[in-house]
């Protein structure tokens, strides 16, 4: 799974930084039928979590109501230099992750 993370690389201690994530995924709803009338099984990224310095700061539980190629923009408070790690898993048990380094300088 291809994914892109965009985040401010340098921050001041305690600064709230913006994180933007775009994941390439069909987010198959399970409500679609192919030409033979067979149901396309639901396959969505149901769990997405973001850790900063090993601590979970944000989690999204998503359903078929999130558009294909899910985009998320959220915030986190940068206290010390650490990695932002985002992981997700879909209903076919395919998981993916992206990470980015944030350097905090006083």
């Amino acid at each position, binding site marked *: 799974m291809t994914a892109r993370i965009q985040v401010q690389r340098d921050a001041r201690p305690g600064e709230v930084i913006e994180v933007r994530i775009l994941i390439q995924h069909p987010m198959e709803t399970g409500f679609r039928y192919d030409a033979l009338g067979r149901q396309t099984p639901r396959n969505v990224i149901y769990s997405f979590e973001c850790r900063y310095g090993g601590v979970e700061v944000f989690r999204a539980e*998503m*359903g078929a109501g999130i558009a294909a190629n899910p985009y998320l923009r959220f*915030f986190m408070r940068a206290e010390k230099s650490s990695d932002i790690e985002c992981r997700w898993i879909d209903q076919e048990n395919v998981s993916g992750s992206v990470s980015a380094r944030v350097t905090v300088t006083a």
Partner: protein
Amino acid sequence: MSASNKQGVRRRALTTLIVLLALPRRVLAQPNVNPAPGIDARMLNTPQGTLQSILQGAAMRRGRVRLELPPVADNGHSVPMVVRVDSPMSDMDYVRRIDLVSEKNPVPLVATFLLSPQTGRAEIESRVRLNGTQRVTAIAQLSDGSFWFDAADIVVNESACLDGG
């Protein structure tokens, strides 16, 4: 081959064709119960049930939450959505979770966002699928357990679910 026999073959072919045409409709009529793990399928199918499972009997008040959706969307496949909660996001007072509930989607619970004081700011942007013109509700639970909500009306010209749900 006699004329009556030919007619029989044709009739059989016609019957087969009708059965084939009728088949996808029957498949369509079947309820779709295939939720993500950990979600109760019985609660999924109505917005009221979803609200009940979020609130668990608690009351919710309008305010503090701001849900931004465009007033009109050409289609419901990818509608930009921003939800903001007025909160200091400190260790003592923060937003615990934000739920998005759709009135008309086959699965009313669009997404649940779980936040922590380290999130820093209670603002989330994403893109949602919407099955037609409806009201979308965002419910936020604060760290003191109280629920706040905001609702936004949106006109969707072309639904995200053209077949099935």
